[in-house]
């Protein structure tokens, strides 16, 4: 379908230089006055609307970690050389990679998709799973398993009946169709999540050490290729302000904030990527997730050693009316960007053709140090990529221990009544067994395929999922995710350590040696000093706990603004621990197996 559409003139770099006084909608795009001012300073003129779009999305909390990154020095400070020994790729890449022996490497990461899942539970959860899988793929790995730590409001609340089945169906719908075993997760109910359910998704991938790929564009003349699904107007509700402010009305105005996932397209993309890796035709690779092309181009260029030139009008579109700003921001799913040497281009294209995956050369790596994007020949972006991708604003937000904590901590269990006879005990036990947080989760887990790929050694209802990586030797990994946010609310430092310890124990009891940690830090608003304090304490707790245990944090994700009005969720630092086993057939299941065995209680 090629509709002829009049192209309104675009806001070019030349035009921007001549019209410094134009009033730009930076506030509506979520930028602060001083952030807008520093953009103007960095590029020495006002940004074009395309540049403004890029900076605004890349400098958002979600992409820039502007409130959290000052606290991340705690990771490095608490990581010893010994802990780094098995670490092949650390924090900062799409996902961390650890050496599990025999030439195998494993990558894993947990991410959140909380807000979209509240708006559209099925698609929000589905695209959350799809996104983390692409992160893992972009490291050069074959994804081998997923997990889904979930948090919902009260089970009896009518809205939970909308959100819970939708989220579970979405996780299953995507994961089952893409063919990854779901080997564990959590389902927790607490009133604090009523308006802010948490949908976290974890993916594990495996590869040979020499197959690790990184997100960087280097080698002048190398081609920059976009491949996978066509680009539509998905998830760009926010940028429509640009279209309406900068351009004539008249184009289609509906820009959905909801992204729809296509797991089939992603399954094909996985197999296609693995063939590309096997053929050694990929120099650098990046998935397209939040912030789409803005993120992929600026991060690839920023991580590389040259500049990059992109012809944006070459992007294959699902909706011909999209404006360049919108194309840059689109969060259409199931897309990847690769950097390929010109001599390997034909082979690259032959492989994508075989999988029926559309691939388009958008531009190339240049010897400059700028990211330059054109639209039908006119320059609409000309910026230093690091300033977009890595040198965004950093906030030192105020921290303050919440005043309510003293009362909360003082309110211990001493004053609670205790059952005095058998009936009392029985009724307490029944209450516990019937509580949604303790009851059987098979209504959820039976909707997930735990067998596909044929390597699952443990999954539900065990405390850790275990999958084989090497079919010859049985070498494999165990993973668990945990967090009790009620403990974290009482004391975020100790609560985060408890989550870490539980996850560590779950992996160890399965029979694996814990190796690495990923975390998804779900918190309220960073603008609340109490929340920021909880955040700092949790990070400190995890980092120091990891040092004690001797395993490094390899990556993770921060999700702020999980709050309704003034009420934040309990601090919920979800911890994932990964361990290695040289033969997963020797794993230890939880649960009694044989009558007559002796039961021991270990520990204090």
């Amino acid at each position, binding site marked *: 379908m090629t509709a002829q559409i009049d192209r309104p003139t675009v806001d070019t770099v030349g035009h921007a230089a001549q019209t410094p006084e134009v009033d730009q909608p930076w506030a509506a795009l979520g930028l602060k006055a001083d952030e807008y001012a520093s953009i103007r300073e960095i590029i020495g003129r006002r940004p074009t609307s395309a540049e403004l779009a890029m900076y605004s999305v890349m400098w958002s909390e979600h992409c820039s970690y502007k409130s959290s990154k000052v606290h991340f020095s705690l990771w490095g400070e608490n990581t010893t050389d010994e802990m780094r020994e098995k670490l092949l790729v650390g924090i900062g890449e799409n996902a961390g990679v650890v050496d599990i022996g025999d030439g195998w490497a494993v990558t894993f990461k947990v991410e959140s998709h909380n807000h979209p899942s509240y708006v*559209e539970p099925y698609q929000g959860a589905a695209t959350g799973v799809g996104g983390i899988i692409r992160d893992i793929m972009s490291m050069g790995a074959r994804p081998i398993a997923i997990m889904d730590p979930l948090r919902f409001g009260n089970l009896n609340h009518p809205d939970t009946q909308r959100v819970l089945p939708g989220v579970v169906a979405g996780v299953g719908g995507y994961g089952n169709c893409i063919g990854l075993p779901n080997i564990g997760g959590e389902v927790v109910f607490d009133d604090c999540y009523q308006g802010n359910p948490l949908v976290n998704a974890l993916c594990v991938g495996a590869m040979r050490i020499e197959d690790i790929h990184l997100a960087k564009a280097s080698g002048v003349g190398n081609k920059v290729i976009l491949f996978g*699904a066509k680009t539509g107007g*998905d998830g760009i509700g926010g940028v429509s302000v640009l279209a309406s402010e900068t351009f004539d009305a008249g184009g289609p105005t*509906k820009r*959905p904030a*909801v992204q*729809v996932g296509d797991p089939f397209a992603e399954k094909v993309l996985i197999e296609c990527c693995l063939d590309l890796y096997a053929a050694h035709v990929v120099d650098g690779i990046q998935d397209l997730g939040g912030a789409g092309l803005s993120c992929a181009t600026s991060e690839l260029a920023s991580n590389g050693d040259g500049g990059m030139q992109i012809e944006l009008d070459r992007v294959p579109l699902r909706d011909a009316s999209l404006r360049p700003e919108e194309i840059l921001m689109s969060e259409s799913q199931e897309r990847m960007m690769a950097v390929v040497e010109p001599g390997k281009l034909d082979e690259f294209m032959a492989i994508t053709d075989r999988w029926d995956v559309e691939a388009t050369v958008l531009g190339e790596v240049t010897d400059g140090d700028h990211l330059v994007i054109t639209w039908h020949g006119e320059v609409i972006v000309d910026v230093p990529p690091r300033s977009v991708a890595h040198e965004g604003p950093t906030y030192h937000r105020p921290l303050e221990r919440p005043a309510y904590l003293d009362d909360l901590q003082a309110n211990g269990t001493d004053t609670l009544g205790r059952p005095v006879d058998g009936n009392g005990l029985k009724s307490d036990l029944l209450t516990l067994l019937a509580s949604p947080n303790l009851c059987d989760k098979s209504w959820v887990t039976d909707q997930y395929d735990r067998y596909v790929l044929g390597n699952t050694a443990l999954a539900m209802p065990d405390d850790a999922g275990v999958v084989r990586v090497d079919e010859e030797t049985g070498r494999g990994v165990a993973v668990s995710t945990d967090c009790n946010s009620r403990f974290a609310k009482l004391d975020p430092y100790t609560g985060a350590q408890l989550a870490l310890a539980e996850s560590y124990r779950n992996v160890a009891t399965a029979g694996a040696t814990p190796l690495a940690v990923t975390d998804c830090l779900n918190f309220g608003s960073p603008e609340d000093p109490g929340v920021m304090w909880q955040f700092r304490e949790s990070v400190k707790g995890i980092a120091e706990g990891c040092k004690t245990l001797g395993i490094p944090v390899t990556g993770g994700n921060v999700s702020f603004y999980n709050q309704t009005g003034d009420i934040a969720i309990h601090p919920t630092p979800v911890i994932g621990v990964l361990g290695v086993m040289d033969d997963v057939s020797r794993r230890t299941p939880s649960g009694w197996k044989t009558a007559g065995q002796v039961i021991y209680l270990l520990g204090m």
Partner: protein
Amino acid sequence: MGHVVIDVMLKPEILDPQGQAVGGALPRLGFEQFTEVRQGKRFVLTVDGEVTDEHLAAAAEAAEKLLSNPVIEDVVSVRAEDPDQ
């Protein structure tokens, strides 16, 4: 016995992976003339007796409330079934 037919389609700007897959298969069967395929849902609701305006109003309300998800779908039509279908 009457029937009310309700048609629901994904909003045009929303990705339709199902329609896409069908659209991709048609040329392989020799059908080259279709440039796009979108797949939606069709509900047939049975009522006792003839379809009245009240039935249609109730069906329209049910279509908005239950049969479609306004975040991603549009109710395209609500009508009494064409008797000659």
